[in-house]
């Protein structure tokens, strides 16, 4: 088979359990974002824009919707004669069948996929982050520095550093230590979970790690520290643009509302670096006579008759006259009926919020701010007339008329 310089492997098998009801039926990378995107659009668009056209997508948890969405890769221009996107679920072998045990094991089980392209470099990505990044620049630095492994890092505030995998490096960028969520971080460089490996080194260390008893087969915990201990040349690649993990309800909500912040550089339709997404032939949005929209994103198929402020509406959302949506995300196909209020909430797909129901509360309404949180409504549910969902609740079944939860 024709040689390919770099193959990207996208780890998309995680459940994203901290997103609760939002990932009950779909894998985290398939979670909707920003009105018309899904999280996986970011790494896939970045690949396409960086000129990386061979991408393996490792799926495991609830792969149906994700595989269906990725399909032939045509939305990202990744439907190619040579390479293109490939969805790679775990499979049965002569030696037996195994689930992907850890991030490293997932790649190990697909070494034969990478082998077919005989690349120089392998780029490891995850489907958990919102960012626009030119991977070609990172690979160019990796080549120029003659590294065995390059890890993309971002400077985080000191008080948040203990939430991340922290990387300690010399002024020239050579890594000398990894610290997983350190209590007293020595630096503020956090790993973004984006790695470039020389293919021969990656193959060697993954094979050795697999044979090692007691290994959790994880890049961060096992493979990277072993490579460092054995003297591999490991370098950091500094990234200093917008990057956000969307692993929790709060961070998902934050990362969406960041799109409304004029100070944040996150233009997703920049002609030089577009984020692509699947499309489905919907008419443009209609804004009615009674609508009152400020500080919001609204997309195709929406029909707005109510009031919107600091909110993001996904495809085919209806907000009827007299309804109010504030500081909220309303995902595809949901309907907010007359007189209903949605604030500080994430409403998943195809939810019906009936007349005069109230979802979520603002922080100001709370007696004790510690009780406050984003309210989340699971997909396909109905919140019946006059019902109330209080702050921070995660709803997994219909809420009855005038019920308070």
């Amino acid at each position, binding site marked *: 088979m024709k040689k390919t310089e770099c193959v990207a492997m996208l780890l998309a098998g995680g459940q994203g359990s901290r997103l609760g009801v939002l990932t009950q039926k779909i894998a985290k990378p398939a979670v909707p974002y*920003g*009105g*018309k995107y899904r999280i996986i659009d970011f790494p896939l668009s970045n690949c396409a824009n960086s000129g990386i056209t061979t991408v393996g997508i490792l799926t495991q948890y609830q792969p149906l919707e994700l595989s269906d969405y990725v399909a032939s890769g*045509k939305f990202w221009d990744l439907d190619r004669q040579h390479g293109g996107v490939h969805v790679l679920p775990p499979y049965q072998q002569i030696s037996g069948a195994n689930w992907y045990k850890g991030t490293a094991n997932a790649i190990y089980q697909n070494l034969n996929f990478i082998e077919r392209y005989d690349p120089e470099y392998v780029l490891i990505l995850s489907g958990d982050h919102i960012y626009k990044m030119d991977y070609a620049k990172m690979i160019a630095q990796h080549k120029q520095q003659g590294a065995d492994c390059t890890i993309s890092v971002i400077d985080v505030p000191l008080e948040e550093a203990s939430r991340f995998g922290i990387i300690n490096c010399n002024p020239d960028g050579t890594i000398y230590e990894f610290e997983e969520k350190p209590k007293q971080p020595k630096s503020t460089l956090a790993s973004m979970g984006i790695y470039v490996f020389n293919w021969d080194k990656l193959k060697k260390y993954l094979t050795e790690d697999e044979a090692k008893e007691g290994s959790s087969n994880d890049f961060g915990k096992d493979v990277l520290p072993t490579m460092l201990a054995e003297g591999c040349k490991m370098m950091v690649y500094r990234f200093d643009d917008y990057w956000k993990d969307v692993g929790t309800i709060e961070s998902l909500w934050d990362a969406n509302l960041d*799109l*409304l912040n004029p100070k944040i550089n996150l*233009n*997703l*339709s920049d002609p030089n670096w*577009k*984020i*692509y*997404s699947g*499309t*489905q*032939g*919907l*008419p*443009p*949005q*209609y*804004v*009615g*006579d*009674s*609508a*009152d*929209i*400020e*500080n*919001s*994103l*609204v*997309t*195709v198929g929406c029909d707005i008759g109510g009031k*919107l402020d600091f909110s*993001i*509406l996904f495809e085919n959302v209806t907000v009827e006259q007299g309804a109010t949506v504030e500081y909220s995300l309303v995902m595809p196909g949901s309907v907010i009926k007359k007189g209903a209020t949605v604030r500080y909430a994430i409403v998943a797909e195809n939810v019906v919020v009936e007349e005069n129901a109230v979802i979520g509360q603002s922080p100001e309404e709370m007696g004790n701010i510690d009780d406050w949180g984003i309210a989340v409504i699971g997909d396909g549910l109905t919140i019946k007339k006059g019902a109330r969902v209080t702050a921070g609740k995660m709803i997994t079944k219909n809420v009855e008329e005038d019920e308070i939860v």
Partner: protein
Amino acid sequence: MIISNTLGIVFANAHDALLKDITKTSSMGAVNYGGRYRLIDFALSNLSNGGVSKVGVITKANYYSLMTHIGNGKPWDLDRKKGGIAILPPYASPEAQIYKGRLEAIHGILEYLQESKEETVVVCDSDVVANVDIRKLLKYHKSKNADITIVTAHGKKPTGQNDMMHYEFNADGKVVGVNFEPSDDCDYSLDITVIGREMLIDIVNAEMAAGRVSLSHGVFENHNKYNIYGYKHEGYCKVIDSIESYFKANLDLLSRDVRNDVFNRNNPIYTNSRDDMPARYGIQSNAKNSIIADGCIIEGTVKNSVLFRGVHIAKGAVVENCVLMHGAEVAEKVKINNVIADCFVKISNSIDKQEITYIEKNQTV
């Protein structure tokens, strides 16, 4: 099961001249409509939704933007191994000019028609906004055992095309009379016609040999010779035959009934995606009764208007009763009314006239 025995032929340049400046550098089919569409999307989506998987698009002039829009036909599911979409460039024999009428145009694609295997052909213009159920139409054509079925609409005949026909039918729907005069209450043609492929070839050859220019005149002057039926389109339709009707057809979308009919969710109208962000409404934006496409940035006031992709309304600007095509920009505090602005127009002076003001592509005013 979708096995189609029908071929689609679309005229991309139908009545270009009627839209004057809008079609100066592009064809009728490529004219922007409804916030994110081009007029040809209706013909292509109707055919595709009707199970037609082979479509030839007859072009005449200025078809670059049409070609980039159609590409390989993917949005309409017309990227096929069997059939699919074909752009048929104008054919001119060494001694002849580019075709003048439809008769010559179809004569120019005889090879394509002869090579095709489909039994039936649906011939469409691209200057009509209507969601037409082609499956029903074909069923009707068959049930009447018709030679030719023409789609008609009832009402006041559009006046832009001076050769537009209207028909008289008997109780069964068969054409018994043809009329060219203007009429307030008649069944006029939407230029969507069903005909047998071989019959079409025979008629074109015969009419060319007889030295005729107009296909429809020839056929309808002999309407007793053929079994011609009319199929009444019940839903919304608008023939685009002037700047005024173009403007009206866009603003008609502000009616929920029209939107539900034109953008019928069971027969969606497909178009090319531009991958824009959702529309962004800023602080103090004020949008009412408008169609707004993705990629728009609304910081001012918009009322009773249709905004295409990537339109920017700056702070304090007021846009009323306007159709602004993609990439148009309205500067701060500028007030405009009754304006059609073509793509990438920049407006920094207020405009408010009784009649419609059309601003050409890329202009700054």
